[in-house]
């Protein structure tokens, strides 16, 4: 299964569709190398979270992949039976969600919530799972691992819970992590620490990360590659330094300009110009017309 030369993730012309035929993702292609962080950026509704959900096989009910291929470590996911697909995804990938409180079971202690997947999915012994969990909790600077393992989620702060989920995600050294706005709910100082942890662990384990965010500031700090999305379409795909130093698409430039900075020199409050949005919508419409012709042929 593990093809050494394969990319961690390869998405080819992915289309994700509502039951009424409306496309949420439109011919999205992107790839991720081992150890690489790719930011998926765009406004609400751009489809950035949907890509991660499609890859992990956790699309909401009714939403499905209508066309396209997802290759995880060289394995065509659509060619697998649902059971094998779930197993493959679970053994190679992990999710760091936006809201750690809803991701953690409120009536179970933290300890088993981290170790269970390690024993059940990865087949580790309990002792090994517990040792690895302690190691990771130490890595995310949790001083008192025994107390934390015996706590319930509500007894911990938001930053603490997010660090626990990062530890849980990295514990099995997955090949792929989808980080879905993992720092949006946090204070800037905690955000910086969390970003640093993700970067450190990801470099150590060689994990590829799809990092979903709407914050161009975070994109600049954490990623090496960027996919800019609008209305479920890829608007620009480029190395991060090029996105900031020489962005090609007007929408990318508008997103960067809309990001507030603490400098007095930058002009405040520049939303994406409505004319640009209208143009992007026209492109999507034209795209949809071509797509429906293709579908009806």
């Amino acid at each position: 299964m593990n093809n050494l030369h394969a990319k961690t993730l390869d998405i080819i012309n992915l289309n994700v569709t509502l039951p009424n035929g409306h496309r949420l993702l439109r011919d999205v292609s992107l790839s991720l190398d081992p150890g690489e962080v790719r930011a998926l950026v765009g406004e609400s509704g751009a489809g950035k979270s949907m890509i991660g959900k499609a890859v992990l096989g956790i699309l909401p009910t009714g939403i499905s992949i209508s066309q396209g291929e997802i290759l995880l470590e060289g394995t065509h996911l659509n060619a697998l039976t649902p059971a094998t697909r779930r197993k493959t995804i679970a053994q190679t990938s992990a999710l760091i969600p936006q809201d750690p409180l809803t991701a953690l079971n409120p009536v179970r202690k933290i300890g088993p919530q981290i170790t269970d997947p390690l024993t059940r999915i990865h087949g580790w012994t309990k002792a090994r799972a517990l040792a690895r969990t302690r190691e990771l909790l130490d890595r995310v600077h949790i001083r008192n691992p025994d107390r934390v393992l015996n706590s319930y989620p509500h007894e911990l702060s938001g930053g603490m819970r997010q660090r626990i989920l990062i530890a849980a995600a990295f514990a099995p050294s997955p090949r792929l992590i989808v980080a879905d706005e993992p720092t949006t709910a946090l204070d800037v100082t905690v955000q910086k620490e969390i970003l640093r942890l993700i970067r450190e662990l990801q470099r150590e384990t060689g994990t590829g990360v799809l990092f979903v965010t709407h914050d161009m500031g975070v994109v600049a700090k954490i990623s090496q590659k960027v996919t800019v999305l609008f209305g479920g379409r890829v608007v620009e795909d480029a190395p991060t330094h090029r996105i900031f130093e020489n962005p090609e698409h007007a929408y990318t430039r508008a997103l960067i300009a809309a990001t507030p900075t603490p400098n007095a020199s930058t002009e405040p409050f520049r939303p994406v110009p409505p004319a640009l949005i209208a143009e992007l919508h026209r492109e999507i419409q034209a795209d949809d017309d071509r797509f429906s012709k293709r579908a009806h042929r």
Partner: protein
Amino acid sequence: MTDVMTPPQPALFSIKDLHLSFPDRAHRPLFGTAPRIEVLKGLTLDLPEGRITGIVGESGSGKSTLGRVLVRLLAPDAGQVTFDGKDIGTLDEDALRPLRRDLQMIFQDPMSSLNPRHKVWRIIAQPMKRYRRGGTRADALKALEKVGLPESFADRYPHELSGGQRQRVGIARAIALEPRFILADEIVSGLDVSSQAQVLSLLKTLAKDMGLTVAFISHDLSVIRHLCDDVIVLNHGEIVDSGPVQTVFEHPKSDITKALLDAIPRPEINDSWFD
């Protein structure tokens, strides 16, 4: 963009040695009363009339608690809260009622602060009726126009609006009452940058046009830099920095302010940011 050094304005709010604490239920003994956690530890500050003051700090710094004292959803344990020359800290609900219209609030999550069963125009008109400030559909439409929403939005329900549009309705509801003070608590933290920019420039224009005094609570210093005239930095219930935004941002006195400024990820390549 930032206005020229304005002459010192009389303070609309004047707060002296404000203390506030909550019972610590987690450590309640079997008998007797729970110990108290001090959330605000003797704050002294002024909010000058007609200016936008940013209140910033980390989670748990007491910024929302301070906001809630300003609109008198919470009463202080000790200290003075003077609004327009009146000490409102000790007033009971009956005595506060005539002041309520002057002290309005815009909330973080419009989905839970706008009645989901009411159309937009009723959401705006209902408090107008209560405070005898009109409350007809036409009145609501006027408020909608001020926040840049077309008439067609009057008959929509909150769930039919985008996050930015909902926040505009929240602003319309507050300004329709022609208050003197608005508390805005993290009103753009749930929005993406483009909607954020729209809502903030709207708030700034309205506040300046109507001569409103605004307290803008946020954890985002970049937003405060561009929106506010003054800023107060809170840490564990104490003021660690305050003054005109330009002064505080360019010459932060406290390490807390410096740390908050340093932690902002700016949209530019900087390989040494993590070091």
